[in-house]
């Protein structure tokens, strides 16, 4: 079974520029997560989708971050404009459904550097 796919793997941008990340979850997985992992820290949930609806986006900085999952499959995460503190690895994960019994499967991540 193919795993969670993410692109690009690396991105370097200047502050105030915009950037977008793409995620393709495991086929059949209804729940999709975007995490931000700053160097030396654990992942922090930014947004969680159930199919194409948002379950939780309480930690998403909505003034500059946006995310969508229009058809309940692929998802994009956008930052506009980027700040230096946005430098991090952005992880996408998916699970069959919501709940502790459903394992989250992670993609390889996108490493963003904002200069």
């Amino acid at each position, binding site marked *: 079974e193919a795993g969670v796919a993410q692109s690009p793997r690396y991105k370097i941008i200047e502050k105030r520029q915009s950037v977008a990340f793409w995620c393709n979850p495991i086929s059949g997985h209804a729940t999709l997560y975007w995490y931000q992992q700053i160097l030396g820290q*654990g992942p922090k949930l930014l947004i969680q989708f159930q199919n194409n609806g948002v379950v939780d986006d309480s930690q998403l900085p909505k003034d500059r971050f946006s995310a969508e999952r229009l058809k309940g499959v692929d998802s994009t995460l956008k930052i506009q404009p980027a700040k230096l503190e946005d430098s991090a690895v952005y992880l996408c994960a998916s699970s069959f459904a919501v709940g502790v019994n459903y394992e989250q499967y992670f*993609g390889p991540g996108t490493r963003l550097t904002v200069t």
Partner: protein
Amino acid sequence: AQRVTQPEKLLSVFKGAPVELKCNYSYSGSPELFWYVQYSRQRLQLLLRHISRESIKGFTADLNKGETSFHLKKPFAQEEDSAMYYCALSSNYQLIWGAGTKLIIKP
């Protein structure tokens, strides 16, 4: 507030020695806890969950509600155990993560 603390950023042990990676949590209620692992150049993946009470790759973790701990243990470390280990707590169907411990197994 819900929180997961991994007090050691780095743990270095010799091959064959016992390993204990510490995890403490703060949670009001009955916690669901997990250990995730990330090997070099690989993806973050689930190692074990406390509700399964399983042993994976020789690792075990016991939930101690009195000490609010969920330490990961292995009696005899192997070189392939070198990795980044994260403890995570489920809260409202979301995971709250510790900062991780880098485990280095010396030959």
